[in-house]
């Protein structure tokens, strides 16, 4: 049965939270330190910006980045899927780093992905890095999907929204206290829109102050849920600098 673990609020031994409950446009969403969002009401697990085969994409262009990113990303994805046992997995676009990624995917990784897909539904949302249906993999392929009160799309729609979960921007937050800053990838939500952190092992982040984020959120309500080493930290946007 899907979603049996959903009700658990996960905590570390010290009582520090691994997840945080938020409401986005009326829908309950659990943001997990692992970088995934869980919709307990519908058994949907959301991941965004996997950027699989990023290393290989760079290698094709002559930059020999370490070839371990795909294995790392898939291992983390497998752990998250094992924890939530979702009915549906939505990969919110930029699942592959480039157009050749899925076609050139080494066989061992393809088998791992297929094993993860087994027994559940899977939707690939179209991203700017991967505008085509993944080659040789199961799952639906579309540019938008609606679940409960939320629209799933890769790029956030400019301006205020009617309820959305999006990726693309790789949000990160920088918290400054006592003259020192710590920057971490984060979930960002103002209650209407949820921006997902990038899940891929070698994906960078873009700060919430970046102009690309402008106009996406009601900043007075904007909360960042930062992905720490062992827990998740919630900090209001207005309090980033103390």
């Amino acid at each position, binding site marked *: 049965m899907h979603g049996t673990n959903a009700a658990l609020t996960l905590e570390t031994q010290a009582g520090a939270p691994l997840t945080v409950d938020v409401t986005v446009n009326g829908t309950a969403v659990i943001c997990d330190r692992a970088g995934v969002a869980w919709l307990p009401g519908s058994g949907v697990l959301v991941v965004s910006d996997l950027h699989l085969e990023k290393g*290989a994409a*760079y*290698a*094709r262009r*002559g*930059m*020999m*980045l*370490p*070839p*371990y*990113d795909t294995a*790392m990303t898939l291992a983390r994805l497998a752990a998250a899927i094992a924890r939530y046992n979702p009915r549906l997995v939505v990969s919110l676009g930029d699942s592959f780093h480039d157009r050749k990624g899925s076609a050139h995917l*080494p066989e061992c990784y393809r088998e791992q992905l297929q094993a993860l897909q087994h027994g559940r539904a899977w939707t690939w949302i179209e991203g700017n890095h991967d505008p085509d249906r993944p080659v040789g993999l199961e799952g639906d392929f579309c540019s938008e999907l609606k679940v409960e009160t939320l629209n799933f799309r890769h790029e956030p729609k400019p301006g205020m929204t009617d309820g959305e979960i999006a990726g693309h*921007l*790789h949000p990160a937050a*920088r*918290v*400054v*206290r*006592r*003259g*020192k*800053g*710590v920057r*971490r990838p984060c979930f960002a939500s103002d209650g209407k829109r949820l921006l997902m952190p*990038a899940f891929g*092992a*070698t*994906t*960078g*982040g*873009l700060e919430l*102050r*970046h*102009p*690309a984020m402008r106009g996406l959120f009601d900043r007075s309500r904007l909360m960042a849920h*930062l992905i*720490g*080493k062992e827990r998740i*930290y*919630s*900090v*209001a946007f207005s*309090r*980033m*600098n*103390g």
Partner: protein
Amino acid sequence: MSNGAHRNTNPVFAAIAFGSASAFLESLHGCTTLSVVKTESAPATDNPGFSLPEPFLGWFASRGWQPRAHQLELLAETITGRSMLLIAPTGAGKTLAGFLPSLTDLAARGKPKSGTAGARTLHTLYISPLKALAVDIERNLARPVEEMALPVRIETRTGDTPQSKRARQRTDPPDILLTTPEQVSLLIANQHAERLFSGLRYVIFDELHSLIASKRGHLLALALARLRKLAPGLQTIGLSATVADPEELQRWLVPQSPATDALAGRITVAGGASPHITILESEERIPWSGHSARYAIPEVYQTIKDHRTTLIFVNTRSQAELLFQELWRINDDSLPIALHHGSLDAAQRRRVEAAMGRNELRAVVATSTLDLGIDWGDVDLVVHVGAPKGASRLAQRIGRSNHRMDEPSRAILTPANRFEVLECQAAIDANYVGAQDTPPGGDGGLDVLAQHVLGMAAASPFDADDLYSEVSSASPYAQLDRETFDKIIEFVATGGYALKSYERYARIRKQPDGRWRISNPQVAQQYRLNIGTIIEAPMLNVRLTSRKNGTLTGRGGPPLGKVEEYFLETLAPGDTFLFSGKILRFEGIRENECMVSKAWDQDPKVPAYAGGKFPLSTYLADSVRAMIADPEKWSALPDQVSDWLRMQQQVSQLPARDSLLIETFPRAERFFMVLYPFEGRVAHQTLGMLLTRRLERLGAQPLGFVATDYSLAVWALEDMGSMIASGRLDLGELFDEDMLGDDLDAWLNESWMLKRTFRACAVISGLIERRHPGKEKSGRQVTVSADLIYDVLRSHEPDHILLRATRADAAQGLLDIHRLGAMLKRIKGHIRHRALEHISPLAVPIMLEMGREPVTGEAHESILAEAAEDLLAEAQS
């Protein structure tokens, strides 16, 4: 004939040597401080041993001039086929000496017939670290070449040379090409390299001492090895200021082999008149700490008024900005005082340089961007503000004020705090005894080697055996083992990973004939775009906009220069800071530009952005220690400083030369431990990191530490003084050399310093591409993060060749491990602990730094927890 009379009868002496054509001629003239006695009437042929050939002889004679002894000696030596190193002070005519062998050879050769091989190859390559220097030399060589009607064509080639001219130079090269190290690397990676360099006779390296200690020098050494292969008969001529270890330079100039220690010949010209250096005698109180030297501004201003043109050197850009601002604040006479540092917009810098050349300025506040040998008009005084961290750096800067060897240079040192008074005095002593300390060149970087290997493949297919013997003939790579070299080839080909998944994307491939060849022309293109070893921190343009009613108007406005991205990350909109001589308000970042507006504040809110701090050199540190330990030397110091040391003697004790003084005392509910190793900030920071780790384990509950060039302070919740007294804390154990083993490894792996080093190695080695200005993608989420790559590599392949290169670099430069190791060895069994009731006089400066300097250490996630708790508290209130 006395020097003075000599000068008076020769108007050419009025010019500063080598800054202009007339000065160039002057530099040919008989020199006054050399051992060879010359008179104006005596023909040059009277010089024992060697004479100039025609038309040089006649040309000199027609002007009643003579070459200097070292110029002739160098010529004589090179004619026998030797490569040579010439060490001479500024103003000794050493650049001309370097060119004489080449010019005489070209004159003897005559004009090659067009279409012959000689017409299509370079004869002489002159390589300077500064492109401005190359341009200067071209101007200076032009006149004698013209007047003697020498059949010689001279051209420059720098990053500014138009593409069309560069292309023409490859097919129709000049006889003498004046260029920079990067351009040489580009030329040898070209497919025409073999023909272009086949007739190369001489390679002249100017300012060699400033090149070899850097990765830039490593790359140049590799390029030289290739040039030797293309033109086996070539000779090198190195020109250098005085250095601590000239043999290192002599080795650098000639091919090395495992069997022999080959050295180029050496000619050393003794220094000219002793420089006249004083420490600013201030009526004001010299501060305990800080770097601004604000107390001395009125006195510095007065010295500007008393001189024709003053060059004011500082150690950091923030100091330059601050000093400039303060000088203008009291500049009641509106003296033309300008600012010059590396972050300013290039056009602005050129304007300052031009005004300087026309003698329109009374003073320029500058950082090390002005360090190397270009002339700046009639400078009659150098003021150095702050500690002149290395004695050789000081010598170079003082050389600036006077390029005539026979006249003493004038300089005034202005220490910013009391420790700097000691340092300045030590530097003065060092300069008088002629002691110099440039850092050793070190082993060649593996990242540099990777770049070179790709370049060589781009030139033509190579055989690994041949390339290995070529590379190991370069002195920085003489110790390179074959296994490491092969790993570098693998790295260049596919990244060199244990997981072999990139074979099909390999950049270079081994052909059936055993030679390595680039896979496609794009690889060569990529190499050209990423050449070089100078990695700057990511910088953003600073653009001035104006505000109206609280909003920014348009985006126009002039660029002011560049600042490091990491500095901007610490700013919030509305913060004000000092840059380009103005107080600016940070407005925000738009794409890749930092938008600022003029602020009307009196003082900037964010005090500074520190760029480039030099550590205290080993030699100077030793002199400072010696001076403190020897009260007889204190008479040279200002009273307030010697009184301070005397107080220290009474209250605690003085740090001795060969031991380490440790003081412990309580203060404000904390317990402090202050150490005085005098090993420079970098080594102290490393020591601080390691000590706090150990103190943590020993239960002292350390809270933080702060490091300066002279001392290190650690504070903790536990009373470390009584821990030492009761034997719970064993100092011998605490400072055991084994801290450089496991503790270092454990800490290093987590350290941001290693990440920063890795980034440079990754770019230089070609693992990630340079960020080219204007070509960055907007939305930086698509660029590769070196930090993330580092993490991936460390967890999957901790022994990867690039991580090895990173650790070696960090140990050499960023962490000063060698210096720390030497210190731990020196103090073993010589640790003196003083348990005090109160802070000691010597501890005051570092205690004052505590509030100002950021506490060194990593930014921890505890900050996030704190922020998250804020929220919780707010929710519950």
